[in-house]
């Protein structure tokens, strides 16, 4: 079984009377790639800063390998951080930036040179030792920031939206590269982002946060397929979310008719939210559909078309590789497996 490295126990944080973190409980394991995902202001960065030692929690315990480290200052923690805007030292060159932590740990010059070279190789920046920070592109600065952190061989690497400032193509490249670096180093990564796709691509575990609370913890595939509530479903991907009523196990009522589903355990007649992903709505001939509707908009998205289908007072979002023209009558089929019934959240 995986070994725990960090645990947050009932961590709460207040800033000037505002509750930023509301009693967070979280367990992080060795070698895990954990992503804290959520909209801005959800408390994900505060959580990371508490782990890094830049903020102290108002209450609760932070455990590192089972020991409470609330009072341990950041310069004594065995974690390193890749900051959002990199925070590279402008008065030092690439080599000295990366060597900064090593010089403190009193290694000799030869060891330092070797480790810096290794770190630069890891991030594909060999030969940039003497360059000044300002002469580097955003992507290169990003790599130096990663090298500067990992060269100290931390047990945990904290990354605060490190890819936010990069353009789309570079971001995709760095996502894969970061994942590779994590695998190669075999250390724990705690990654903060508001980009759900980034989270799904890179993580072993995703922690979805909102308003200082954890909404769901799970593997990407579980978060995507079995969102625990409407917020997670909405945040993780564009879905159609409908109010419904649970009839009995494996039966749910929404969109003016009863459907078979795979969910159970709700009370009969309980008000629920039903999530249908756009790629799970199959378009068929009107007479073959469970529901009938009219196509009101078609947008080409590259791999698929995104269509809006109006049926009664519900607008369905549908993804399909085949296009139905605007105004055409269509039928829709939804399989029991693709119907996600969730507890209603007071919003």
């Amino acid at each position, binding site marked *: 079984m995986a070994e725990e490295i960090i645990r947050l126990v009932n961590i709460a944080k207040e800033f000037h009377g505002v509750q930023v973190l509301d009693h967070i409980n979280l367990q992080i394991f060795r070698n895990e790639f954990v992503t804290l995902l959520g909209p801005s202001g959800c408390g994900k960065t505060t959580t990371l800063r508490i782990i890094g030692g830049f903020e102290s929690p108002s209450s609760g315990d932070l455990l590192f390998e089972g020991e409470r480290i609330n009072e341990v200052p950041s*310069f004594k923690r065995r974690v390193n*951080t890749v900051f959002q*805007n990199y925070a590279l*030292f*402008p*008065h030092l060159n690439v080599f000295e930036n990366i060597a900064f932590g090593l010089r*403190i740990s009193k290694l000799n010059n030869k060891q330092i040179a070797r480790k810096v070279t290794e770190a630069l190789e890891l991030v594909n920046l060999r030969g940039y030792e003497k360059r000044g920070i300002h002469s580097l592109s955003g992507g290169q600065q990003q790599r130096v920031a990663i090298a500067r952190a990992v060269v100290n061989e931390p047990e945990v690497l904290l990354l605060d939206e490190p890819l936010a400032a990069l353009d789309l193509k570079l971001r995709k490249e760095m996502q894969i590269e970061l994942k590779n670096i994590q695998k190669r180093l075999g250390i724990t990564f705690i990654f903060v982002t508001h980009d759900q796709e980034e989270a799904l691509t890179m993580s072993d575990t995703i922690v979805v946060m909102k308003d200082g609370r954890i909404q769901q913890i799970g593997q990407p595939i579980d978060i995507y397929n079995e969102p625990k509530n409407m917020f997670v479903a909405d945040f993780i991907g564009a879905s159609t979310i409908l109010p419904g009523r649970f009839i009995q196990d494996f039966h749910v009522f929404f969109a003016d008719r009863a459907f078979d589903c795979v969910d159970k355990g709700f009370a009969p007649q309980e008000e629920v939210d039903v999530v249908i992903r756009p790629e799970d709505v199959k378009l068929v001939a009107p007479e073959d559909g469970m529901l009938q509707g009219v196509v009101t908009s078609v947008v080409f998205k590259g791999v698929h078309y995104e269509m809006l289908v109006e049926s009664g007072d519900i607008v369905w979002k549908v993804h399909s590789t085949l296009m139905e023209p605007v105004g055409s009558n269509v039928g829709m089929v939804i399989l029991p497996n693709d119907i996600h019934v969730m507890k209603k959240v007071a919003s």
Partner: protein
Amino acid sequence: MKRNWMAYPYFFWMLLFTIVPLLMVLYFSFTASVNGDGRFSFANFQRVLDPLYLNVIWRSVRLAFISTVICLVLGYPVAMLLAQSQASRQFTLIVLFVIPMWMNFLARTYAWMTLLERNGLINTFLGWFGLGPYNLLHTEFAVVLGMIYNFLPFMVLPIYTVLNKMDPALTEASYDLGATPIRTFFRVTLPLSLPGVLSGISMVFMPAVTTFVIPQLLGGGQFTMIGNLIEQQFLRSNDWGFGSALSIILMLLILLSMRIMSHYDRDRGEGGGFF
């Protein structure tokens, strides 16, 4: 670019009140009066080499240097405190700091005279504890004190400006990499604030080395500095030639110190550099 005619009044001003007087000073310094006739001569500069005058120059540099160092030692922590305090409090603190500067320079310096007098406030206060009275006024101490008091804000403000602009994430990054707060100060904060320190040093050293009011009032005329000497030549001895030569020496002195500073200030794009 099309509007550069708007700068003409200033150029004219500069020409009339800076360039021309400078040339005049240069002319007087190399001119000796022989029977009412001006002749080219090095005599004025040779006179500066008199130990009496060299001593004055040395004293000016020494006192200005001491004041600058003390201003730096006192001012840097204050600048740090200002930069680190909350934005709402920063304004109040800066205003408190700058308010004395709104008062007339002479009034401020006269105030110190009454404070330092033999039966002044400080000696009275010390007397309550059975101490003194001390001769505080008309000492080098009083001169240095007056310079520090008057010029300290010029040290604090440029350092504060640089520190305030510094990304707080840099300090965090240093802690993150294992550096203690003290190490972080010497490895990150201080090197990055150097441009502010350098302009602070020049903004204190320059007025300190040229001042003549402070040594006159607080030094009681016993600690003549180069500024007093120049004043004497122009206003009392009427020896414009020698006064001009001294002025040129003073300018060279300042230029030299600026040159040394800018040497340390190279390759630093940010901050309040002077040259």
